[in-house]
């Protein structure tokens, strides 16, 4: 059974801005699904439609077989949602927040304690502290506990790792993997491409449109050309020179290196490129082959 389905979902905001443009995808039960895209791609709008906070302007969507428009009450009983922005009561303590949300779902902290235990033990020493006074990582753990307190069948996590340090991000993904073993379907959105490989399947999204949906490895395998990385002393000039070079198919800045691919890929072309760059005064050229990452795929699909 499919946990989540979207069929040509459209959301138009004021002034005709198309935030979600005929998006269709589905998520299997028990899957860890990632929605990957930059800020403003429409990730949050999709999440808000699926959690019944926003009505779509077109198309059909369902969660656990319930329609987001007609059966929104049923959906609210079964999903857990963790918004991108910390949105628990800052003036209530950790424990009070948890108890409060448990009560709203007609359950108790004790009833589902086993599900959140791993996460809760980390914040339990601070259970009497006001939620507003917690550190960023702690807030995130508390928010996750609150979203899990009623043992949801589908968990929606909107940019859970944005603004969280690297260690906490790693920890967080470990927690998600453990939750998956409990049979919970997890939808997570993130602007960080490096997190994409941690999901089972991903959808790349840009300007409200889905670019590609597949397992991360398949998306990477579909990258058509061999990819190379190149760097020199003067990176910005190097980028200009590379873009002007007739043999270059694509070229973009990627951290320390520029990533390039060739129109016709052979040793002779590589040599002639390096020579022409040296004549243009680039020193300490470093040229090597490169495994494409999700980000490379994303940039290729984007253009």
């Amino acid at each position, binding site marked *: 059974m499919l946990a989540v389905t979207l069929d040509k979902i459209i959301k138009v905001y004021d002034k005709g801005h198309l935030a979600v443009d005929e998006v269709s995808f589905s998520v299997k039960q028990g899957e860890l699904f990632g929605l990957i895209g930059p800020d403003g791609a429409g990730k949050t709008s999709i999440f808000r439609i699926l959690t019944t*906070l926003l009505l779509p302007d077109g198309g059909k969507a369902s969660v656990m077989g319930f329609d987001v428009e007609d059966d929104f009450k049923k959906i*609210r009983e079964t999903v857990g*949602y963790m*918004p991108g922005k*910390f*949105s628990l009561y800052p003036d209530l303590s950790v424990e009070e927040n948890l108890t409060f949300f448990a*009560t*709203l779902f007609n359950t108790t902290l004790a009833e589902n304690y086993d599900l959140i235990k791993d996460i809760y033990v980390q914040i339990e020493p601070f259970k009497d502290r006001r939620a507003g006074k917690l550190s960023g990582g702690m807030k995130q753990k508390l928010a996750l506990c*609150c979203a899990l307190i009623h043992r949801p069948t589908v968990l929606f996590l909107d940019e859970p790792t944005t603004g969280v340090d690297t260690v906490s991000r790693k920890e967080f993904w470990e927690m998600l993997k453990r939750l998956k073993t409990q049979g919970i379907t997890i939808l997570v959105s993130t602007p960080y491409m490096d997190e994409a490989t941690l999901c089972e399947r991903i959808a790349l999204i840009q300007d409200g449109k889905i670019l590609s949906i597949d397992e991360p490895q398949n998306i990477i395998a579909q990258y058509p050309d061999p990819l190379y990385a190149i760097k020199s002393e003067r990176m910005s000039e190097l980028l200009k020179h590379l873009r002007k070079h007739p043999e270059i198919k694509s070229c973009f800045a990627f951290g320390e290196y520029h990533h390039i691919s060739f129109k016709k890929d052979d040793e002779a072309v590589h040599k002639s490129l390096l020579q022409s760059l040296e004549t243009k005064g680039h020193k300490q050229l470093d040229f090597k082959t490169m495994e494409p990452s999700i980000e490379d795929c994303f940039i290729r699909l984007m253009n």
Partner: protein
Amino acid sequence: MRSLLFLLRKEFKQIFRNKSILAMIIGMPIIQLLIMPLAADFEIKNIKISIVDHDRSVYSKNLIDKVIASGYFQLNDYSTSFEQSFQQFEANNSDLVLEIPQHFERDLVKLQEGSLLLAVNAINGTNASVGSAYLSNIIGQYNQELRKQGLSASIAMPATIEVATLNWFNPYLNYPFFMVPGILVSLVTMVGIYMCALNIVKEKEVGTIEQINVTPIKKHHFILGKLIPFWVIGVFVFSLGLLGVARVAYGIIPVGSMPLLYSYLAIFLIAILGIGLLISTYSQTQQQAMSLAFFVIMVFILLSGLFTPIDSMPEWAKVIANLNPLTYFIEVMRMIVLKGSGFAQIKSHFLAMIAFAIFFNGWAIINYKKTS
């Protein structure tokens, strides 16, 4: 029902943790009720007067003594030229100039008539109108006394009509008696509208409303969970003002029935909280809610008959005043507290307030949509 109880518990917990709201609930009614009625006193005293006396006779002296002895006027300067007094006028040192012409006494005795010039500094409208009215009254009394003394026996006394005023329900025209109940109403309004609107908008601003909305909680439970705490606080503030400050500081003890007064308060608070809820549905941030609430409260208070009588307002303002819940509660307060009116006299007020409560809450609930 259980989730409503938990919502209420959470709401009260949050309110009691917020020190500034607590201070507002307890401090505001006490401080405002102690300061406002004394300062916002319409009985005008200490009107500064300049007197220009060209006559300097016994009669003019008597008149001046009478004016000063009335207690309403303070002699600013006493001169012999109008120009000199006018300078005081221009410097804003005096509010009124009374000019007594030369031969005032002679004309009164011989011609049976005298004339006086009264110039008013109309920069301060209230001071000007009230001051000149007081002064005319005093001059009129003086005139009558002169007639009674029989200035000249040869002239027959014209009949005079004496008017005696009796102030019912507030015999000594004690100003706080009149103002305190009204100010108490405006206080309860402020607490109700501001707190209710800001609290709900805060949930929007912080984002907690999103979390609440994805839970299966019912719409009406959420709204009731917001309204009930502020209803309770409204009753508390009102009681603190009426049974505490008004009784202890001003000795105001309601003449009428307390259950009647509190039943009216109960309906009034529902109407007022409906306005707060309505404001919250139109605002996204606390700043917006604050500005909107401030505007609404300002109009409500100024057009409620609290400071200026509604009867003297222009027709269009009367229409607004009649659509203002405060107007009705202030009237009911004054009627029950000062006059001891019973249910029969305020039946129409009850109906009006029930209509307000249904109207504002209905509008707010239609506008408050759980799914946008």
